[in-house]
């Protein structure tokens, strides 16, 4: 299947999922048992969930092929079944994974997709409660281009 140069949003979501999956596989990870999905997904959601969504992307400068991708990682934890302490440990682990100085290099080096990342900036964190879930989010802009 060909990989398309301008499919940066899907490529970035897949790369984020791969980074989260790799983190979940590390010894002692707090997110080891959590389902990890891309933002656009047709997978069934069992209970707790982490997903990476590229909400939008803007080409900048116009015509350059470089995209600023508004990205959100959301951690959904059941308030009834899992609880707040575990939720907080998951959110902090995900924040540490993505609020890293070398994240741009990590995204570029990940071989899930042909994507080159130039910078990651404008971090925001948020938390809320919705439908019996504790939700923790981390949002940031990824400046990247498709490498094919």
């Amino acid at each position, binding site marked *: 299947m060909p990989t398309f140069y301008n499919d940066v949003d899907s490529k970035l979501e897949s790369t984020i999922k791969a980074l989260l999956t790799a983190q979940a596989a590390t010894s002692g990870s707090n997110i080891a048992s959590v389902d990890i*999905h891309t*933002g656009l997904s*047709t997978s069934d959601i069992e209970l707790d969930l982490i*997903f990476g969504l590229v909400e939008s992307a803007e080409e900048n400068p116009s015509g350059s092929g470089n995209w600023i991708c508004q990205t959100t990682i959301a951690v959904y934890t059941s308030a009834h079944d899992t609880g707040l302490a575990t939720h907080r440990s998951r959110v902090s682990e995900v924040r540490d994974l993505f609020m890293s100085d070398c994240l741009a290099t990590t995204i570029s080096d990940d071989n899930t997709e042909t994507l080159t990342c130039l910078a990651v900036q404008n971090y925001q964190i948020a938390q809320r409660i919705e439908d019996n879930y504790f939700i923790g989010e981390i949002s940031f802009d990824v400046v990247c281009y498709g490498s094919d």
Partner: protein
Amino acid sequence: MATIAQELASDFDSIKSDFPVVINHNGTTYNGTMSSATKGRTLEEGGLFPDIDAVLIMKSADFTTKPKAGQKVLINSCFDCSLRLQNYRITSVEFPDGAIILISIVALNQ
């Protein structure tokens, strides 16, 4: 002559035998029946959330400890086989007449 309470209990037993549901709550098994269930799936960010709504109808006297909203209940067997062997979340508990208990359930992540 049977009292009204006895007739109601007999009627309920007939419904239970025609439309049986066996649930497990807090480690104890209970027999009852269920209203029609609504089943769907809603696509949201991250994937497909199950969308299930049903009301379990059980005999109140069977419960020494009454179920509470937020607790889980396992449907061991059900005349609707698609609901079997799944855990559900109790969203509300109603005691309409003291004889039966209505337990509203949804999917765990609703």
